[in-house]
């Protein structure tokens, strides 16, 4: 990537973040080609939509066959994947060249049109996603990118205001290129390709970064305990989404942030204060969402901004709500820890007089309800990009305040230096926290269990990179 490299205090943090990321092929030996990695996946099903495959385990699996234009090796280091070059041609324009001749199975060659259509889905009715905030700085907010297509392999993106983090934002997994095919479903370009056997993914020899070390991946769907048992019986090599403490491998970046979104007119004005007084985040992460989570007090996770305990005014613990209709708390039925967290919230708020009914729904249903604003309370989790400015945009969008983006983002993007930008983001995050109907809860990282004979690195988004994984000799 060619672009201005920034130095400054932000990079202290970024470098710290940088510590924790693995660079490709850092082995003392060369990678071993060959082998089959058997993965037990604890989610209920494989997601087919990039904006829905955002839980770390889902994203890790999704990225094996759907990649985006680029990938973050660390917060400052961008590795082009489906793009060969992302060149800044002006103060607010970037020219992106796509890899030539990359073929997507059953959809022809990768073209700029595929990219535009893929990104446009984020803003369409029915598939509206909070990740459209990542494209917000573009002219037209990423909805109409036909005008940006220069040729079948070149796109020129221009932003409405200065936004230096644009290229890094484009590396988010939700912006992966997915081309819909007839008969439902979608195909993409990734290090592995799906075969006719649904649970086996074969290496993609023509992957622009080079074929993965592994020959194939074999996916087994199993719930948490069964998956761990399969691992201990050596019937699978890796468990994605669940770990026991002896085998746990965690990415160090907790970027999967879970919030409690609420509708103030339904919950009442005291809700935030009541919640803060009733629910202890440290307990929440210690007992109820224990695997790989850290408490999140501010709008952005601890990996992106140093946390300061919330300064929301606490309503007196004795404030009661009498005779109010019960509130419904929606949560993702595919994430088992959300059930425990939802129950905890239900129980703690019950002591203050709130009556809350829990309702598990599918993730697509959850997003639909978010898009329409049809909910009382919702546990909503999104995968934050490892950069503070796009993360703030995502948080504002998640809170449903799309209109605030117009006033907040340009001021942030106007700062050319990353460190200053980061400070501004931090300040805005603290300022906006009370305004947004969003209570941050905790942030999680990707969690896996693997037998030690596999080498599995993580990328800058905190997700495992299966294309760089290989078996290590005994």
């Amino acid at each position, binding site marked *: 990537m060619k672009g201005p490299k920034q130095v400054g205090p932000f*990079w*202290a*943090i970024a*470098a*710290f973040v*940088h*510590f*924790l*990321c*693995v*660079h*490709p*092929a*850092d*082995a*003392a*030996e*060369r*990678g*071993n*080609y060959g082998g089959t990695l058997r993965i037990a996946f604890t989610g209920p099903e494989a997601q087919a939509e990039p904006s829905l495959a955002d839980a770390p385990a889902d994203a890790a699996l999704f990225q094996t066959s759907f990649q985006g234009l680029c990938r973050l090796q660390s917060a400052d*280091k961008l590795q082009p994947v489906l793009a060969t070059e992302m060149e800044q041609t002006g103060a607010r324009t970037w020219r992106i060249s796509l*890899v*030539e*001749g990359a073929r997507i199975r059953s959809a022809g060659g990768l073209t700029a049109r595929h990219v535009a259509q893929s990104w446009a889905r984020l803003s369409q009715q029915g598939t509206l996603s909070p990740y459209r905030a990542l494209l917000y700085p573009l002219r037209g907010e990423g909805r109409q990118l036909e005008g940006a297509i220069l040729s079948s392999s070149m796109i020129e993106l221009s932003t409405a205001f200065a936004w230096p983090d644009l290229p890094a934002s484009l590396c988010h997994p939700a912006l992966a290129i997915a081309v819909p095919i007839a008969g439902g479903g979608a195909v993409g370009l990734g290090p592995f390709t799906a075969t006719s056997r649904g649970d086996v993914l074969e*290496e993609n*020899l*023509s*992957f*622009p*970064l*080079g*074929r*993965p*070390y592994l020959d194939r991946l074999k996916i087994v769907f199993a719930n948490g305990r069964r998956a761990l048992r399969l691992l201990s019986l050596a019937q699978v090599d890796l468990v994605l989404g669940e770990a026991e*403490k*002896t*085998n*746990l*491998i*965690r*990415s*160090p970046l907790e970027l999967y942030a879970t919030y409690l979104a609420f509708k103030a007119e339904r919950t009442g004005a005291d809700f935030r204060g009541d919640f803060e007084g009733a629910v202890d985040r440290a307990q929440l992460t210690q007992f109820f969402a*224990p*695997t*790989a989570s850290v408490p999140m007090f501010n709008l952005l996770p601890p990996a992106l901004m140093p946390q300061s305990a919330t300064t929301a005014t606490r309503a007196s613990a004795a404030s009661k709500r009498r005779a109010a209709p019960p509130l419904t708390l929606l949560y993702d039925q595919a994430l088992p820890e959300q059930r425990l967290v939802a129950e905890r919230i239900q129980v703690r708020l019950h002591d203050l007089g709130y009556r809350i009914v829990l309702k598990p729904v599918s993730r697509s249903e959850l997003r639909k309800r978010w898009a329409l604003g049809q909910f009382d309370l919702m546990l909503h989790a999104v995968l934050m990009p490892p950069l503070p400015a796009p993360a703030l945009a995502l948080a504002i969008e998640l809170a449903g305040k799309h209109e605030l983006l117009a006033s907040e983002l340009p001021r942030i993007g106007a700062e050319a230096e990353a460190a200053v930008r980061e400070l501004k983001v931090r300040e805005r995050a603290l300022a906006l926290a009370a305004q947004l109907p969003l209570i941050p809860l905790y942030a999680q990282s990707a969690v896996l269990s693997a037998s030690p004979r596999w*080498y599995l*690195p*993580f990328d800058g988004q905190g997700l495992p990179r299966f*294309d*760089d994984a290989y078996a*290590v*000799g005994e």
Partner: protein
Amino acid sequence: MRPLLLLLAVGTMTFPQLPTPPPPPPSAHRLALEVAERIVSQGAEAPVAILVRSSSQALSDGFATVLAAALARAQMGPSVLNNVADPIQWARANLVKSLVRLELRVENGQLIARGDLFGTWVNFWSGKAVTRPPQPAAIIRASVDADPEVAAILASSSDRNPFRLTGFASLPLRTAALAAGDLDGDGRDEVVALTDDELVVFSWDGRVLAKRNHRKQPASPTPCREPVGSVVLVPKTRQVAYFSCRLGKAEVLEFEPSQGSLKLVETADAAPIARSGESLLWTKVLPGQNTFGPEFGAKGEPAVSLGQAFWTLSYLLSSTPPVYLAVFPGGTGTLARGGPSGADRWALRELGAGSGLVDFEGRGVPALVTSSPRFHSEPEEVRVLQLTKAPTLKWTAVLPIGLILQVTGADLDGTRRQAAVLGVWMPDGSGEIQVLRSLPAE
């Protein structure tokens, strides 16, 4: 609990066994302060453990003390490690959040501290398992003008080492292949390095003589994940044959020393892997992988098969008979005397990915220079093995930073005594060429 432990660590580590180290020379003092500043500016997390190596233990200790003091002033909770077998393990076990590993040396009148800053924080949730492979996270590089005292200390200490490792050149990308040979007939070998962008010809002292950029050429449909390639030099004809996995094909170039240019002679689909006399030996590359073979041979001649695909093929033609070394994935290798299909061959184990035959003595007796055989070994080691029937370790040194992926022998000073030219991959994606010289016994 933790502060106690730290105090204990600091206490045991710095005070009981050793006498108070002498105050370091001013340049080392300055360097220590600069390094401390760098460490703090890189955002290291307290507490920090420090490991300093140099050819002089006393200098290392003094340097470490000053560095620790500076870090302590910056509230970094430093502790100094000495004689610790596995510093990273120690750091984890003692709940140290960052580890600084430094190497001190003098080069070109500069006292250079090079090392890395390394996060070792382990979330207690992760239990005993490694949460992530330890990786160097930030490079600490600082240098000050060396005063004569420091140079003297280091120089005299270096007498204890028969080998010396110095830098040679830096490249923006990691090296895919290395080769050395006398292309311009001046008696000293040139070093040719291949990266995914270009092929660079260096002179014996590290100057760039010629470059060929192949980045503009279209990529192969089956690109490689790592920088993979091969370079073979034919000094007589001044030919440089190279294969880059990014291109998916090989090019044979002719080096024009007076113009400092490389001219394309021909292209080929196979990869040049070795030389026998004046003819190039070609092999196949498994598409998208980092292995060659298993067969190789000259064009038009029957191929020699090594039985399995190999990572590297190293050869010493100046020895009689010529010796070939093939390293296979997994760290095994085969050494064959008398040519690649020589009758006298024996199997080797525990070779690193960067292995090569180097004739340090100039007598035609190759030594085996190899990297650490351990997977993800930290830090990287360079080992010099004497090639008897059972190779014995003659010398080993620790590389503070980087991984050795290529080893080739080059006669850089015209004395027929080769030095080992190492292709070192840096953690930030760049590459370095370092030279391991054997020092004459005095």
